[in-house]
């Protein structure tokens, strides 16, 4: 029953109804039952648990938590109320952290591959053998192919910094993380506009446009919670999404935008704000460069023009531009996190950045704020020099503006397959899973086939671990001691957290720091790991002598947070020292200095009618949690969201198994026939269709996004572009 159909009853009806129901109770009770009698319930006893502070590891947010430990077993994880970044919450995944610790699918001992690659035949070996083998292989590869012949990939983790440190000490430039499969396009765009990657201060905002971000499902703390609280206080949140997500359902307004046309919407907002002079002229003159060029660029990009591109009514676009400007500077186009969508995603996100610049919201409450000072000291070292090193990363110069410290996984993979510009023959992987996150899985497989040695350190037998020569068991976050990490929380400032073990490591697991330290010892690099984690933390916290005690007591330390506006008058870190509406660096490099709109590519093949979009829910963080016993109750499989009219045309009914295919691969999964998605778009959750025999809940369940996605990439920064694939969909068994 919909809201609008709800029948409200008056006070008088309420009384009448109460009388009627009392009569009904009396009638059924005749001769049998008397009114329920209250009894004294036995007093419940408080659990005999120890409460230990830690930090969640079920996604990248790192929410503070309190582990309840009974007789050495974690029985519950609760939110740490002193950790304000998460607004005192722990989501479904956080609660399922217990199931992760005690997951029977955990890797329990070092495992050496004895069958063919990917065949799943393993032999348990000792840690001594495992370290010796890894060190020997690394030495051999370095001798034969230079030290850059080793590739290091670490996911989001509080110990990942040690993997990068090791790679640098070992002498390889080739380091990738998950970020080039996720957020680099957005970072590139904001960096090239503001000279900085600012954070949204949702809490103080009065108007937020969420485009390409499903923030009420893909939770980011504190933004997700703050969106709800500000709407309760009258702020407006507008969602543009081809799908009726939970964010769309709860937003003030939702528009099922044509995928790939966000830039047209943003340029039309700019058109209205500029043509109606809704900006702060003094601010724009003092703090931005290129307004005249931008004005000329967007002169024809009216809301009427954008309506044809986006499908959003022109009147609404015009109104939103005025509302945004009226609420400025406490208004924003939300920058978003995952921006690995299109080949021109950097330029799309540039258009987001430009609208924010027009709102004058930089370093203002409710706008975009520069990262707040965390005061964490780097534990620096002098990396050794190796004469035989190649000039740079294997993917260097493959795109104009690669992030040198992140690279591009898709382009690195291409280079490994080709063996050019130089061969990479070894791969050290920590807690990242490109076999489940990098587009076109068969290419990742092809890359792995080029390798002489691949070692994966992880808690579970991920699809990537399944392909390795050696798998090393990592402890869960609850079993570890971790260095200090700074977390950002909008205008509220940074906070510092660490982890101490809540329980001792299970099985034979060893933290990656210990593994790297042992390898460093074998490889003559001991001097770069001549510390333990407590000593490292002390160095990190050198600026705050009181912090260690406070983190021990509260689970979190808040460094001093200067008020917003501290950057006023200071130059921006761009060539013009201003916010670059017109990007002078792009002009010099022959790139479009202003975002040039190109309509999204249409399907190249009449049979492949549907654009694939992917995402996650509040219950899973991709493949790292879909195999979790508790979370699999919420998301047991992924289904293909298919518009109900499109389904009718295809003869597909609710729950039918459909076959989907792209030039990259194919899959089978059940159809979820729904009005909640556009006719031209299909959607799948990530993290399913696994191939690893070590994942009992997800192996062969549903379809894999990376089996279907083509390996496209952002032409400016090399970030993957995972919404550029069209699928054919047919009912299984249909001709």
């Amino acid at each position, binding site marked *: *029953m*919909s*809201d*609008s*159909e*709800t029948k*409200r*009853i008056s*006070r008088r009806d309420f009384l009448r*109804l109460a009388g009627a*129901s009392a009569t*009904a*109770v009396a009638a059924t009770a005749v001769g049998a039952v008397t*009114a*329920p*009698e*209250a009894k*004294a*319930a036995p007093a*419940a*006893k*408080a*659990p005999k*648990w120890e409460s230990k502070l830690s930090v969640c590891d079920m996604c990248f947010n790192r929410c503070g938590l309190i582990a309840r430990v009974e007789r050495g077993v974690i*029985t*519950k994880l*609760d939110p740490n109320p002193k950790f304000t970044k998460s*607004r*005192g*919450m*722990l*989501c*479904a995944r956080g*609660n*399922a952290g217990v*199931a992760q610790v005690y997951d029977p699918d955990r890797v329990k001992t070092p495992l050496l591959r004895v069958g063919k690659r990917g065949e799943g035949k393993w032999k348990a070996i000792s840690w001594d053998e495992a370290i010796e083998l890894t060190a020997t292989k690394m030495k051999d590869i370095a001798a034969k192919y230079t030290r850059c012949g080793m590739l290091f990939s670490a996911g989001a983790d509080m110990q990942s910094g040690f993997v990068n440190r090791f790679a640098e000490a070992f002498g390889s430039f080739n380091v990738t993380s998950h970020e080039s499969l996720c957020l680099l396009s957005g970072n590139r765009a904001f960096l090239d506009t503001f000279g900085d990657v600012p954070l949204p201060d949702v809490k103080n905002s009065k108007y937020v446009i969420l485009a390409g971000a499903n923030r*009420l499902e893909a*939770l980011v703390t504190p933004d997700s*919670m703050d969106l*709800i*609280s500000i709407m*309760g206080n009258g702020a407006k949140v507008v969602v543009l999404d081809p799908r009726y997500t*939970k964010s*769309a*359902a*709860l937003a003030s307004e*939702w528009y*099922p935008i044509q995928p790939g046309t966000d830039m047209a919407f943003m340029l039309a907002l700019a058109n209205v704000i500029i043509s109606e002079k809704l900006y702060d002229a003094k601010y724009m003159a003092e703090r931005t460069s290129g307004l005249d060029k931008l004005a000329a660029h967007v002169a024809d990009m009216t809301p009427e023009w954008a309506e044809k591109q986006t499908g959003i*009514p022109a*009147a609404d676009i015009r109104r939103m531009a005025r509302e945004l400007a009226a609420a400025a500077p406490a208004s924003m186009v939300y920058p978003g996190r995952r921006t690995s969508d299109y080949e021109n995603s950097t330029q799309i996100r540039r258009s987001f950045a430009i609208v924010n610049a027009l709102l004058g919201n930089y370093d203002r409450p409710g706008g975009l704020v520069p990262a707040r000072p965390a005061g964490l000291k780097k534990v620096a070292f002098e990396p050794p020099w190796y004469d035989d090193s190649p000039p740079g990363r294997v993917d260097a110069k493959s795109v104009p503006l690669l992030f040198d410290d992140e690279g591009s996984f898709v382009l690195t993979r291409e280079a490994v397959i080709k063996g050019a510009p130089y061969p990479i023959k070894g791969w050290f992987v920590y807690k990242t899973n490109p076999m489940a996150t990098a587009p076109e899985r068969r290419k990742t497989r092809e890359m792995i086939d080029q390798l002489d040695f691949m070692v994966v350190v992880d808690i579970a037998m991920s699809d990537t671990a399944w392909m390795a020569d050696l798998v090393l068991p990592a402890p869960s976050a609850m079993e570890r001691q971790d260095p200090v990490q700074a977390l950002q929380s909008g205008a509220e400032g940074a906070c510092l957290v660490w982890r101490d073990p809540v329980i001792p490591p299970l099985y034979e697991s060893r933290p990656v720091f210990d593994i790297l330290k042992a390898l460093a010892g074998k490889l003559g690099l001991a001097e770069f790991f001549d510390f333990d984690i407590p000593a490292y933390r002390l160095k990190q916290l050198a600026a705050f002598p009181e912090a260690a005690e406070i983190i021990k007591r509260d689970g979190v330390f808040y460094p001093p947070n200067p008020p917003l506006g501290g950057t006023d008058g200071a130059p921006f870190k761009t060539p013009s020292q201003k916010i670059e509406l017109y990007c002078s660096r792009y002009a010099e490099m022959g790139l479009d200095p202003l975002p040039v709109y190109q309509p999204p590519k249409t399907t190249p093949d009449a049979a492949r009618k549907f654009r694939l979009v992917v995402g996650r829910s*509040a*219950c899973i963080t991709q493949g790292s949690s879909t195999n979790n016993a*508790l*979370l699999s*109750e*919420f998301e047991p499989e992924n289904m293909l969201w298919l518009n109900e009219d499109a389904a009718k045309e295809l003869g597909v009914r*609710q729950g039918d198994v459909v076959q989907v295919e792209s030039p990259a691969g194919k899959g089978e999964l059940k159809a*979820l026939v*729904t009005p*909640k998605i556009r006719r031209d778009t299909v959607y799948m959750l990530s993290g399913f269709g696994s191939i690893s025999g070590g994942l009992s809940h997800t192996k062969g369940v549903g379809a894999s996004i990376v089996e279907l996605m083509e390996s496209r990439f952002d032409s400016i920064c090399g970030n993957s572009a995972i919404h550029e694939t069209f699928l054919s969909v047919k009912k299984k068994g249909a001709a």
Partner: protein
Amino acid sequence: MSTQKLAMVIDSAKCIDCKGCVAACKQANGVSRGVWRNWIKEAVPPLVNASDGSKKLGHGHFQPGACMHCDEPTCIQACPTGATYKSASDGTVVIDPRLCIGCGNCIKACPYGARFRDPVKRIADKCNYCPERRAAGLAPACVDTCPTKARVFGDINDPNSDAAKLLAANQGKVVRVIAKGKDTKPNMYYIASTAPDGWAVQPVDPLSFDFLAGVVAPAVKWAVGLSGLGVLAMLGRQLFVGAGTHGSGGAHGTDDKPNGGKPSDDKPNTEKKEEGGHA
């Protein structure tokens, strides 16, 4: 000692359907796989007119719920052994696991589908507002973990409790979900905009003629309701009944599926009741 009245006041407009409360409950209470002590229901969004005249889906709404710890609970009347009773000290509806024979009567008697038969213990189970956590000075797991603090818990007889304060602040705007014509006086209060409201079902009273005719031979139907024979009959029935059946308003666990969560298709027998504040 003054008597408590523990209740939940829910601002369902804040609920983002993240399942944090459901996961927290399962972990805190060791709830078996496939059954749920609490839930989030999803209203079917209406079709609305876009400004260009086209139709699109309008506002959605998610609604957290669980056992409502009613003041006039139909489940207590349905229990043949006295295993289900109302706590004199805090008003919660309690199941004594030592007395429960797993007959399932209370499951059908609950209009809200709040009860289920635990497939492992084979006795009735439902939300108990986490008494062990309360004894430790903590909120129930679902309340503690909620990202947007949609669930608020407390003793509404204590005007200083969070729940009582929220009720007072929303005086005249609070509703309860009940089955039409059967007001069990639930202690689950929703801020008035809540949806869906079409999901409570008519409670089945085990002493009604129809119900008895459906389970035991007509010759013993009266005896069943009145004597220890009834207990034996119900015990016998337990041995034949499949495990893990949720009540008819239940199957809450599947409500999150994007299109599968149809809140019981506009059943005409449910309504929202306005509260004129509370006593």
